[in-house]
Every structure is written in C-alpha cells, then in structure tokens.
C-alpha cells in the first residue's frame, strides 16, 4: 500500500500558505461555496424539502418528480410546491410542507403567480432575492447553479490541461534530443490553431440529442484540446532542469526505468512550479467559459450560465440593472478570490522567503 508522505519542504510550504491569511481564507471560502453549490438543491430549488401529506412524509428534493395528482392538484406533471403550500394553507387539513429559502429552480418561469412578463425587480415577498430575468426566471437560482457548472467546469479544465501538459512536457523534457525537437514543433503547430474558430465550428456540429452532460463535457474537451499547450513549456523546462541533477543520475545508475524516474523522482520536484499556476488556470477557465457563453457559443440554452446572464444584463442595462450587477458582482468576487489564492500559493511556494514584487 502506498502511503502518502509529504516531503518536509512541501509541509513547510503548506504551513506558509496557511499563514497567509487572505489567500487561505479565500481558499476556504471558495471551496466552501463550491461544496455548498453541490447541494444547491436543498437551498435553491422549486421542490419542497419536506412535504407532510395525509400522514405521509415526502422528500422531493432529489429523485423522481412527483406529479400534481399525487397531492390532489389534478394534473399529471410535476407538482408546483409553492402552489401546494397555498392549497394546504387554505384547506388547513393539517398537511404542511417546507420550502427551501429560495423556492425556485434555474429553469422555471414564474409566470403563473404574478402578472409580470419578465424583469421583476428584487423583492423579499416574492422571494426573488436578486430579481428575475426576461423570462421571469430567478436570477439568484441561475447564479447559484451557474456557479456550480462553471466551477466544476474550471476544475475539470484544470485537471485535464495539467494531465495533458504534464504527460507531453515530461516526455519532451526527459527524453530530449529528437523527440524534443519534433515533439515541440508539433506542440507549436497545434498551439497555432485558432481556438475560438475551432470552438465555434465544433459547437455548431455537436448533435443536439446529446444530453446536457455530454454537451458540457465535449465543450470542455474541445477547450482543453486547444489550450493545454501553454503549460507544456513550463513542465518541459522544469524537467530539463531537474533531470540534470545528480539524484537522477543516481537513480539511473541503480537501474530505475524511465517511468519510475519521471513519476517518482522528477514530477514531485517540478510539481511546485505547476501548482502556482493552478489558480490562474482556474480563473482563465472561468472567464473563457463566461466569455463563450456571452458570445453565444458556450453552454447550450437554457443551461444556467453567467455569460448568458451577463449578456442579458448588458442588453437590458436600463430596464433591469439587477441582472448585470448580480452577474458581474458574482464574477468579480469569484475571480478576486481565485486570484488571492493564486497569489498566496505563489508566495508560499517561492523559494525566497522575502521577496518584493514590483
């Protein structure tokens, strides 16, 4: 069994990171927000948390939808729990239900209960805390679910680009010579393929019958395929530098194979260079998926997304300022937090303890 042992140097770096309070707390906050968004169904959802109906308890948040007929509402499609709450209240037969704090989901148009035709301003009574968009969907719900998708997307992007870059970079760096020369040329050629065009073309040929998950993953794959090259150069040069050191020669003398040397000896020593880039990659991923959505080439409608909200907000700047301010606020906040984390990591992993940035 493999035991994870942290090298004392790494431990010290981690301690140093913890001591940089701004970055550390940003990190905790971001992580917390992400985990919270993973169970967003319990906080922001049109489905009730608990329904007590004729002696039986229901927990509709997850799982199959319950048709309105089930609660005597007389329709075969999904129960509208806000309506159900009113019905329970009117009938006062001892049935009750508990709604989440924000009783809307990101897709639902709240046309039925208000006369509004879109763009309702924020209000506490209607529980649209950040108002609604042009088709009367809750802005907060779309922000929360949009955050979940965007952040998961960014993490996936980080993982995959790193995977590709590390594989390519270590092969180039470790073997060097002709492999390096030709390999690097290929990487250069690849990095010249215009990224945005490729995304636009590939998105337009993506079959619509693919599920949402498929569409998002393929968009992720496309983005990764055309943007992993940047990191390769760093990995390659770090490996080059590291492999010239004596301990690698020693490992070779003992008879260690290439795979072992790369995985066990080289990578742990170059990883610190890469880690410092990670938060900035996340920030880049968030901003590029938002930009793509803004341009209309990103996630398929009506997936909640920040870019789409921003676009709506900008188009309706005068009549619904709450949309653009919420979306832009959320984006700025997230990116700032990510940058704080990045700064802290960079500082923590810096070999020089005292350095000044100018």
């Amino acid at each position, binding site marked *: 069994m493999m035991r994870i042992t942290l090298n004392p140097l790494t431990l010290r770096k981690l301690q140093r990171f913890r001591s940089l309070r701004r970055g550390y707390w940003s990190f905790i906050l971001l992580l917390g927000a992400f985990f919270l968004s993973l169970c967003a169904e319990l906080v922001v959802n049109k489905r009730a948390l608990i329904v007590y109906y004729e002696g039986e308890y229901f927990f509709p948040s997850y799982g199959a939808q319950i048709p309105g007929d089930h609660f005597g509402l007389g329709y075969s499609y999904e129960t509208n729990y806000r309506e159900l709450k009113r019905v329970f209240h009117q009938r006062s037969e001892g049935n009750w239900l508990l709604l989440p704090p924000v009783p809307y989901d990101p897709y639902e148009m709240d046309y039925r209960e208000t006369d509004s035709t879109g763009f309702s301003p924020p209000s506490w009574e209607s529980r649209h805390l950040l108002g609604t968009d042009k088709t009367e969907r809750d802005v907060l719900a779309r922000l929360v679910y949009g955050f979940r998708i965007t952040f998961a997307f960014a993490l996936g992007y980080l993982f995959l680009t790193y995977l590709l870059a590390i594989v390519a970079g270590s092969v180039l760096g470790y073997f060097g010579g002709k492999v390096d020369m030709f390999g690097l040329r290929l990487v250069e050629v690849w990095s010249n393929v215009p990224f945005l065009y490729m995304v636009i073309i590939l998105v337009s040929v993506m*079959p619509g019958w693919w599920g949402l998950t498929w569409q998002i993953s393929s968009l992720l794959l496309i983005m990764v395929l055309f943007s992993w090259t940047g990191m390769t150069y760093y990995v390659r040069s770090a490996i080059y530098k590291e492999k010239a050191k004596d301990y690698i020669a020693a490992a070779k003398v003992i008879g260690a194979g290439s795979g072992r040397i790369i995985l066990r000896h080289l990578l742990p020593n170059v990883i610190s260079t890469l880690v410092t880039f990670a938060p900035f990659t996340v920030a880049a991923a968030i901003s590029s998926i938002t930009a793509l959505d803004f341009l209309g080439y990103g996630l398929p409608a009506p997936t909640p997304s920040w870019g789409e909200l921003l676009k709506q907000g900008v188009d309706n700047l005068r009549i619904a300022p709450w949309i653009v301010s919420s979306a832009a606020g959320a984006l700025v906040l997230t990116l700032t937090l990510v940058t704080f984390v990045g700064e802290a990591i960079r500082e923590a992993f810096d070999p020089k303890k005292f350095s000044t940035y100018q």
Partner: protein
Amino acid sequence: MNTVKKINLHLFTLLVFFFLSLFVGCEDNTLKKPDSVNPGSQPKEKARTMGESDREYIRELAREFAQELRKEIGSSVGDVKADQPSKEKTFTDFSGLLDESGNPHPLLAHCSDSVLEFYLKHKDAFQISSINQLPKDLQWEDGSKEDKFASPDAKRGGTWKTFMSDFPRTLRTIGPDANGAFRRYLLDYNGVGLVMTHPNSDGYYPGLAERWALGKDGRTVYFQLDGDARYSDGQPVRASDFFFTFYFMRSKHLQAPWYNDFYGKDKFLKVTLFNKDTLSITYHSSKPDLVERISIRSIPEHFYDELGGDYLKKYQWVQEPTTGPYVVRKEDIKKGQSVTLTRLSNWWADQKKFYRNRYNPDRILVQVIRDPSKAFEVFLKGDLDMFSLSKTDYWYEKLPNDHQLVSEGYLTKVTFFNQVPPPSYALRINSSKPPLDDLNVRIGFHYAMNFDLVLQKIFRGDFERMRTVADGYGNRSHPTLQARKFSVDLATKFFAKAGYRDRGNDGILINDAGKRLSVELLTGYKHLEDVLVVLREEAKKAGLDLKLKILESTAAFKTASEKNHQVVFSAFSSFVELFPRFWEPYHSDNAYSPGGKEKFNADGSLRSDIVVKTSTNNFTQTAVLEIDQLIDQYRVEESLKEITSLAHQLSKLIHDHAVYVPGWKKPWLRMGHWNWVAFPEDWGPCETRDYAEFQVFWIDEDKRLVINEARKNGRKLADQVGVRVYEKHRINL
C-alpha cells in the same frame, strides 16, 4: 561536419517556417479589394522595420506567395478562355436576329459575339419582330387610374442615417454573399422594374414601362418602355437590355442557382422586341398575377458587355448602374465602417407621378453597428433617425411611452396597421425523422406547444396566433381552420397512442422500449431564444423533452436545408402576392428523389430506396401522394376560384398531416423616429412591411438642428406624448 550541421539547421528552419506559414494564413481573413477593380490605386507598401519579428516576416512571405498563386491561377484561367474557338460566325438567319447577309439586327448591333451566340442558340426564346406585327387590339394600361401615395409636403434633402449589422461582403446584388442586409439599399429601396405593383391597391403603376397590355393568350404581356428611362451612368434603358437580362440571369458565372431557376427558360418562354422601346415577354402559364410575375428589372448590357468567369471578382465592389435614384460612389465606401448612398441630381423618374416626393433624402448613411442593443443606444443618442420597435421589450421597456424623449416631443412612436402576408414564424417538423415519423407524435407535439403563453407573456398579447400554413392571403387563406391549442391532456393522449405512456423520473414520457420522448429543436434566431425557452418548459408538462439547438443563422439554415433537423423554428418572409406557394415547402419532389410518382408504392406509401433531397425548402419532408396531386393541379390552375378552393384543401390536408405548428403574426409594424423625420398623413401605403420600403418619408435638417439644440438645453418641445397609431388599414378578424 560543421557544414552538415548548418544545412540541417537551415532545413529545420525552413520546416518550421513552412508550418508556421500554413497557420498564419488563417488569420488573414480581412476584406480586400480585388486589384483589378481599382487599377489606379497602388497597394500600399507596408513599411517593415528592423526589429520586427520573424513571424511577421513569414506572414508577409505567405501573403506574397498567396498573391503569386492567385495571379498564376487567374492567368491560367484567362488562357483557357482565350483558347476557346468561339469567334467564328457560322450563324444562320432566323427569328429576325440576323439579316440576310448575316449581320445582327440593328437593335442588337452593339451585342458582343458571345451574347449574340447565346440568343441564336435559344432562337425560340429571343425573337425580333417588326412593330407592324404588334397586335392592334391591345388594351394598354398606364396606371393613371391609381392614386399616388407620396405626400406633396415632402421636403427634398438631408441625410438619412441608418445602420446595418455587418459590412456588406460585396456590392453585387447577385451571386455568393450578395444576399446580405445591404442589398435592400441597392435593390429593394432603389430598383425600378418594368411595372410596379401598387402598394395601396391590386393595381399597378408604371416603372421602366410607361404602359403595358395583357396579350390574348393570357401568358404574354406587352410593354412600352418609358423614353426617359436612364441608368445612373446616363445611358438609356434599351429594349435589348431585356434580352440581356435573361442572358445574364441564366449565366452559370453568377453562381446563383436560384436566379438561374427563377429566370429559367421553363418559366420565361420568350422575349420579343418590336422596336427600340416596345417588347413582350411570354410566361409559361397564365396566372391571375401575371403582370407582377413578368415585371423584371433590366440589366445594363453596356455595363457588362458579356459575362465571364471573373464576374464575381470583377464586380465585387462596383455598383451596377441602376435605374433607381441612389448610387454608391467609390469614395463613400468606408470598409468595415459605413457605406453612403447619394441621390442622383437628375434622376429620370424624379417628376413622374408615382415617384414624385419619394426618395427624399439626398444621402443615405448606412453605418455598421454590429450589436442591436448598441444600435438602439445610438438611436437614442440621435445618431440614427429611425428604429424598428417591433420587439416587445423595445416598445414597452426600453422606450416606454413615458420615456423623456417621447413625452417631451423629441421622438415619436408609431404603430401602423399594414396588410401583408406575415413572415411564417412556425415550427416545421421533419416528418422523416423518428419519433416524428409517427403522426400521433406529431399531433401530440402540436398540442404540447404553448404558443398562447408565449403570445401572452413574451409578446404581451400584441401578436396573434397564426392559424394555418397560409395566412394573410385574403379569401385564399382557409376561412375556419385553427391552430391546435396547448393541452396537456390531448398531448399526452396522442403521445400514448404512439406508445409513450409512462413518465420517467424527470417527468418525460418513455415508451415500452424505454426510449425517452425527446426532440431536438433547431433555430437560427438567437434573439427569439426566450420563446423557445418558454415552449420547452411548458412542453415538459406534457412529458416532452425539447432540446434546444441555437446556431448562428446561416449554420441553422444549412442544417435544415440538408434535412438534418428534427424540428426547426424558422420563418420565411412571404412575398406580397395573390396566393400562397405550396410547391416549394410541401411537394414530395422537394423531399426525395426520384421525382414524380416513382417514389411511391402502389398503395401510396413511400418506397424504401428513395433518397433525401437537400437544399430545398421542404423542411418538413412532406411527401404525400394526395398533397402532391393537389399541388400539381394548383400550379397549372388558371382560374382564381379554383385556385382558392385548392388552397383551402391543401391547407386542411397539411393541417391534418401535422408537420407545421403555426407560430404568430403581427398585424402591424411598429417603429420610432426622431421628429425631424416626417411621414405622409396616412404614414405609408398599406402593403408597407418595413418603414423604408416605399421611401415616402423625408428628413428635415432644419428641424434636426432645432431639436438637437433644444435637447442640449434641456428644453421641452411638446406636452403631448409622441405616440401615434394609424388604423386605416386595420383588419378586424
């Protein structure tokens, strides 16, 4: 050893450069003027400084190489052309085109050899007769009974400032890329045909022809050209230009199959010239609206002389001399920014009855503003004169009646009720793609579309639901048919008939094989996304999952015309014509090959080995023998009564076939304009589809100064709200 290394390095550098140049070429996608068009201006030599990177240098090399290659290819094409042995005159005399000694008729004396050869090759389509042969008993009409529709108060002058969303890719009006938003300024707002349809009545008014007459066979129309008719370069319009029009429109060099077909020899059978300004054109069949169909525009032969393989390139940035009032001067084309049109000072039709007081601005400045919401802000700033406010959010929220500019007399909001066949906003179901090949699924789909909610919430009840496949054609439209209304019960009932009985965990219906009822809905209308979002959410209630696919408009159109869609949300703009078209969208010949009845089995079902036909407008892949037969009958029918009855039957059959979910229509046009723009008393003719179509407005530059001045000083101009409704042409359904 050292030399070998050097050579290696050299080879390697070359390899890298080669790869790089492959890719830098991709970025050079800017518009360029073809050199041949502009021989006077030398391409500017780009100054290269010492410190510039290799990359830039390679890019330069790649460009030079590409230019060389282009020249090479160009010259080789030219060589081939020169080699063609087409100069020999071996024509024989017939159809009056040549005299006895083999010389062309005086009316065709100016024609180039290849043009003449074309006429001779199609001898039965191009004929010259003498004026004595003109039928004596013709009933000439000249439109003098019609009323004019412009205002005598109109003021000439000023600049009309408007916008387009993209810079035109060409100034040609035909051929690849010509069908852009700018073409309307060159053609629709500007062109004059032989005879023009009167926008306030069923009659006509003179265009290039000052009078016209219907022949006895019901298929020929005689025209007498207006002696004043001139092109913008001062040359007169000649009768032989209508010969040339067909030479031009049928040319493959245009790369415009639609035009080749529209002007094809199976449609226009014959053109006969009688003298220098009398001609007749014969159509393939007699139709109630024959004059309208035959009234083509003229192509200036003196300008083209003949057509060759260089047509597209040569005329990319030159405006063809027009018979209309506006021309584009070379110095007014600002690439990527704007195009300005200038009114001719001595336009030939200037004082004619139906043209007087129209086309009033001296200049039309068409700026590129890519984003519509930005264009709207520019309009509010006063840098655009008019703006379409048909969209609900613009009318109600972005420019509400209590907006300061409206309430203080700067701007006027106009609702004008018009009478035109509406653009057919509808969902077109591809009946060849499962599960939609099942009639019950299609009918269920109809019931699952909540257009009423869309109309009520997104369009605030301003639009009406379209009823049939052919609304807006007077009594040719079906009198009683209604679109199917949203009903969860009926939808689920029909879905159950097709085997989709149970709901899955997400509430979507599944059939016994476990297949979800999921359908892809394609559209190119990004701006109508809200509509689809509402339809999608409501369809969930009926257990139908709609997957939206919103593409850029040309990509969407391509997908649909390749029949790769399941359902497409699209609109075709309808021509203002007497009766609707059924052949293009519903005939089986536009769905599958082989043509005709061969694609059906004896029992009327479709054979299994037929091939899908792409690039047609039959987006529904309708192929029903009964519908085919009726359409065939409809196309040859000449009596209006029969046409009407057939149109009703067809509308009903297509309704039963359930491939077309009618969307909405708007019975009006809404727009806003600054008060320095003025309109006639009735605002415009009843067939107006967009505010500039008939060019009856005028710009008062003095008023512009006054209004701008008042705005700067924050002075109120009027107390009443500037909202006007013109209901003269309102139809109460």
